[in-house]
């Protein structure tokens, strides 16, 4: 069994390496991904080993990166494009939404565009404007795209392999503030399917559902709650489009209480969708309305107040208290 302890960034690197080795049609492309190894070093060493034909430093042009990735995919390649930071995906948004998402449907299923777009996202690293955003809902809203976000090294490794193997376009959101957190990766394991949620911690009093960077926060909140005698279940969603509602529903019905936690603004966010669906499915099993904890309807604030903006233990536990009070 090949079990390694890797930080999330390194797990992604290994995953890309494995994919590049396994399939000559896989290409990695983006700004600074080659010689520099990416601004987070996620692609470190790949160009050295696979050449600048496979690991491509592109011009500084996001629309260009995604538009040409589409063309490469039409020609039989499997591009894995990197957008350097969440806030810089918007020059490419047009290509993603109007072209990438719709080609399979428009061709009546005759052409496939297996493009993976890796985007480091979310806050908590003290960055300047446009470097800490959580735009996942904007992509999940678009039919034709799949949207996933791993929360740990093992998922980072496996989910990226699966995204690359998928014949659909996948937006792969990487929780950048977790890049340096280590976890075990078993490269021989049989992974869960890409769009299956997992129960990260079992509990009986209430369910926290989160994805990406907030899973760890929820696990910490559950640990803190346990000291107060409250038993929280934590569901790691893993996939934001599609959402594995069955797993969420089972947990919500088990505990009777559901709290959705994400960094993105609550308003029109992923939490709204989960709250609505679970309310429809499990109305008579719920002891309290589904609550949401997330960002405010404000631009991502300057670094020195981001800790107030981002959901932390206290805000999660406050929501748990509110839920339990019903």
């Amino acid at each position, binding site marked *: 069994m090949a079990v390694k302890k890797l930080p999330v960034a390194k797990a992604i690197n290994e995953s890309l390496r494995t994919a590049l080795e396994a399939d000559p049609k896989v290409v990695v492309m983006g700004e600074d991904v080659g010689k520099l*190894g990416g601004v987070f070093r996620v692609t470190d060493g790949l160009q050295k080993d696979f050449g600048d034909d496979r690991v491509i430093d592109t*011009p*500084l042009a996001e629309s260009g990166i995604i538009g040409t990735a589409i063309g490469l995919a039409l020609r039989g390649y499997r591009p894995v494009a990197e957008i350097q930071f969440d806030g*810089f995906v918007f020059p490419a948004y047009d290509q993603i939404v109007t072209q990438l998402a719709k080609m399979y449907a428009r061709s009546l299923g005759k052409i496939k565009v297996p493009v993976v777009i890796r985007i480091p996202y979310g806050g908590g690293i003290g960055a300047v404007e446009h470097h800490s955003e959580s735009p996942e809902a904007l992509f999940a809203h678009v039919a034709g795209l799949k949207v996933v976000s791993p929360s740990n090294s093992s998922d980072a490794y496996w989910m990226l392999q699966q995204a690359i193997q998928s014949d659909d376009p996948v937006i792969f959101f990487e929780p950048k503030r977790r890049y340096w957190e280590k976890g075990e990766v078993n490269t021989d394991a049989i992974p869960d399917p890409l769009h299956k949620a997992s129960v990260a911690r079992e509990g009986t009093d209430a369910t926290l559902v989160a994805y990406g960077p907030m899973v760890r926060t929820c696990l910490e909140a559950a640990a803190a709650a346990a000291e107060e005698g409250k038993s929280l279940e934590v569901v790691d969603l893993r996939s934001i489009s599609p959402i594995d509602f069955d797993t969420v529903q089972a947990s919500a019905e088990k505990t009777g209480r559901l709290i959705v936690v994400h960094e993105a603004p609550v308003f029109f966010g992923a939490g709204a969708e989960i709250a609505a669906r679970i309310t429809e499915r499990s109305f008579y099993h719920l002891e309290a309305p589904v609550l949401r904890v997330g960002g*405010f309807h404000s631009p991502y604030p300057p670094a*020195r107040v981001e800790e107030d903006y981002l959901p932390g233990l206290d805000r999660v536990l406050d929501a748990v208290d509110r839920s339990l009070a019903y």
Partner: protein
Amino acid sequence: MTVESTAARTPRRASSGGKRTSASAKSAGASAKKSASAKKPAKDAGAGAQPELVQLLTPEGERVESPEYDKYVADVTPEDLRVLYRDMVMTRRFDAEAVTLQRQGELGLWPSLLGQEAAQVGSGRATREDDYVFPTYREHGVAWCRGVDPTLLLGMFRGVNNGGWDPNSNNFHLYTIVIGSQTLHATGYAMGIAKDGADSAVVAYLGDGATSQGDVAEAFTFAAVYNSPVVFFCQNNQWAISEPTEKQSRVPLYQRAQGYGFPGVRVDGNDVLACLAVSKWALERARTGEGPSLVEAFTYRMGAHTTSDDPSRYRRDEEREAWEAKDPIKRLRAYLEAEGHADEAFFAELDAESETLGKRVREVVRSMPDPEPMSIFENIYADGHALVDEERAEFAAYQASFADAPADAATGGEVK
């Protein structure tokens, strides 16, 4: 509205001098010595044949003639030259202080302008008070020339705000981090100037990497089609983070302009006098209704891309060393000394003045308070928004729930 659209058809007045005179004010202080090296090819442009590079001061600080551009600096006095020199020294000192402050943890990030002082000061001093500047995130020297208090530039890099100054105070727009976006804003602003029949001009700063962005192509298109009074000032500092200019373009960048139907010029970006002259040329064109132009200031980013970057991963030390010989400040100093335009006392005084600036910057930054948490809800909508009001109230109540200490209770449970 109707007034404006009528005005749009009125030809704009020819340049008649603005509210403020720039660094170049009166009679010529610069005696031309050598002959036209304006046509001298640049030694170190990208691969292949070297395009022309406008140069008025050699790296050794010798004045060279340029039949085309000398006239734009004919009125530059020794005093003006000292102003340009001071601008560059003060800007460099400010920048160095910011780098240090970042290392000390006072700033989250800093994009250094080291090496680009001449391009920024030359172009910045060419602007008039009523002109409008759209910077990227590295134009600290231009901000200085526009009279922006340099400490204001530090707020967003400290993480206390996302901008930090009133763009209309000095006609200096907020720093734009998303690459290329501001070139379209600049073009639109210039379209407005034209509609108003004014003779102001706009300068849009951009990097060599930015020339790859679709927004920049669109800005060039709009500027050309509407013959807008905008100068695209591209500082080709040779690198876009780790990617050399060759990863953005197969032709010298200034030549791009031709395809859009306006002129492009490459200037020695480490020669402040040449940058001043070429910018004046471009601004005069803009003011007199001749439309946009592209200036490529051929320069070098001496430091890292930002304090988070490690240039040793992608470029060799020798490259930096070669550019050190072309230092913009040393070059002007050599010229000032050779011409007897500045004495030891001037340089000593400037040293002291720049130290004072460094000290002030240090003090101001260290005493910048963190924003109040409730500031998250400020300035989101000009006309207000019910959801924001609701979230603000909820968050205030949540914050207040922590304030159970008696001292806080005494102040009405006010949150920190």
